[in-house]
């Protein structure tokens, strides 16, 4: 899953590194908080990065005679906590890119996003759900499988977008030459059928061993109220940031109205669309009559969040 250099356009690499910057910052802050209670975390991240490196290097036998290797994202998240795992895996990927020629240097951001963010966090979320339902091992297995497949899907999307993003005037791709139709199935079949199961077996067996041999060394999540606070913070941040959508000129791909579609197709919009069902929403295109557009965006975001919150409240069990 390590994307090499020159498969992603420099613009994509830039975007991915920019996306990773806040994640790394939050990870460092989170780990700093973890250090206050558990002081050995600093050296532990360094040593754990070495462990992650060895896990990725170790080839496991799979029926049929070939081998595959695990990434161990979900497992590390369960052992060290997701934030520390994110840092340790990022570090491993950095060293692999610089010193061992595995994965690109420019593509480091994209690789880190796929393997150091998606894998540990998805894995850890599933593990926590499993823990609440008293089936930790199943939670971890599901998390490991989902995590690696989601990471593969993201890698497939990143690669498959390249022919759309970067091509010459004649439409010849400049970077990864394969479109989404090829990259996503190619990445996913390999991971759904083989690598996913290798990851599951690896994670479950190692977890089982540690749970039996030294259960106290496993990472204990802090009280959940705090993690919800972060979630609410993120939500408020997103609401405030929602007018950013206005910065993008033009309508999102596939969200054109009939007029825009006709312009793009240079012919009339398909008959099925002009005569189809038309729904006039109350606040069409997030614009409320008589209000400025950014304010309309924020109000729309708040409304959506409140409607979801009310729906959740309706579904909530009485204590």
């Amino acid at each position, binding site marked *: 899953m390590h994307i*090499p*250099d*020159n498969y992603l*356009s*420099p613009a994509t*690499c830039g975007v991915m590194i920019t996306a990773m910057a806040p994640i790394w910052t939050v990870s*460092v802050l989170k780990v700093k908080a973890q250090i206050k209670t558990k*002081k*050995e975390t*600093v*050296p*532990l*991240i*360094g*040593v*754990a*990065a*070495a*462990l992650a*490196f*060895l*896990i990725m*290097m*170790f*080839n*496991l*036998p799979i029926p049929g*005679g070939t*081998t595959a290797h695990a990434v161990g994202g979900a497992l590390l998240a369960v*052992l060290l906590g997701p934030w520390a795992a994110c*840092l340790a895996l990022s*570090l*491993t990927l*950095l*060293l692999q890119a*610089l*010193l*061992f*020629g595995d994965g*690109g*240097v*420019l593509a480091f951001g994209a690789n880190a996003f796929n393997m150091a963010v998606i894998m540990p966090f998805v894995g850890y979320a599933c593990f926590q759900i499993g823990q609440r339902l008293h089936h930790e091992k199943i939670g971890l297995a599901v998390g490991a499988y989902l995590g690696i497949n989601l990471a593969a899907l993201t890698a497939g999307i990143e690669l498959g977008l390249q022919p759309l993003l970067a091509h*010459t005037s004649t439409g*010849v*791709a*400049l*970077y990864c*030459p*394969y479109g989404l139709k090829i990259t996503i199935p190619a990445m996913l079949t390999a991971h759904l059928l083989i690598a996913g199961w290798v990851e599951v*077996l*690896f994670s*479950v*067996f*190692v977890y*089982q*061993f*540690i749970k039996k*041999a*030294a259960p106290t*060394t496993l990472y204990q999540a802090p009280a959940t109220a705090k993690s919800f606070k972060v979630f609410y913070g993120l939500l408020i941040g997103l609401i405030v940031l929602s007018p950013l959508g206005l910065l993008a000129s033009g309508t999102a791909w596939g969200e054109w109205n009939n007029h825009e579609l006709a312009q793009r197709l240079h012919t009339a919009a398909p008959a099925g669309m002009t005569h189809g069902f038309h729904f006039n929403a109350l606040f069409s295109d997030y614009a409320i009559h008589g209000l400025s557009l950014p304010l309309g965006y924020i109000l729309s975001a708040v409304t959506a969040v409140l409607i979801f919150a009310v729906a959740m409240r309706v579904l909530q069990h009485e204590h």
Partner: protein
Amino acid sequence: MSTKLPDWLTTSTPLPTGHQQRHFLAQNMQRLERLLQRFSQANDLARPPLKHFIAPQHKLLAVLGVILLLSLNQNILLLWLLLLGDLVILLLLPPIYLRQVLRQTAVTGAFAILLILPSLLLNANVALFAAKTLLILLNLNYYRTTTTFNQVITALQQLHCPNSVIFVVDITLIYLKMLGEFLLQLLQAVSLRTVGKSKHPYQMIGLLFGTLYLKTRDYALDLYAAMEARGFIGVYPAAPRTRQRDQLYLLLEVTVFCFLFLLGR
């Protein structure tokens, strides 16, 4: 009187070993040995030492710059110029390093080309893409062959990476060797002692990596205790001062980068 060996002594009955299992253990041991070789000093002594003309941070910046240039531009002339530059730099290398760089580039390049061959059907510009990928791989392999672990750390330090990051990278590199050795010993012990088939190879892997993780924790705890005992307060030794020559070199580097970038547009 002739003694006749009993039948069971003359026929050989091979032990029922899991062939595949042995194979993967041996394969992994080989890979680990190769990794550990990169850390061994004996290996370094066997080769002529490299002369480092430029400071590690500039080398890292130069590699990043060249890769950026290569992936940003679609200009054949620029690729050609960079290839010529690479060839001159390769000429300055002692043959033993040169062979290593070229071998690694050939192997990794073959994989990359195999991957893009089917795109010929899609009418893509395979030649340009392949040329760019090969050049990037050549530069990366040159960097990783001629750079030691310490130089990477110095480079990060000079580029004003936060102390905590450098400290953790340092620990990772040291413990990569320690944990690698531990895992190799474990694998050797397992392959010497196991007779017959194990129920499931993954059960053994759980054991191997479970033990390795516990060892990881032990190392981390010991290291922290040692750090605390020596009064570590999170400050890494100051980076060596940059020389004036290095600053001039940086200026040159930026100029060349800008020139090539404008040329390639």
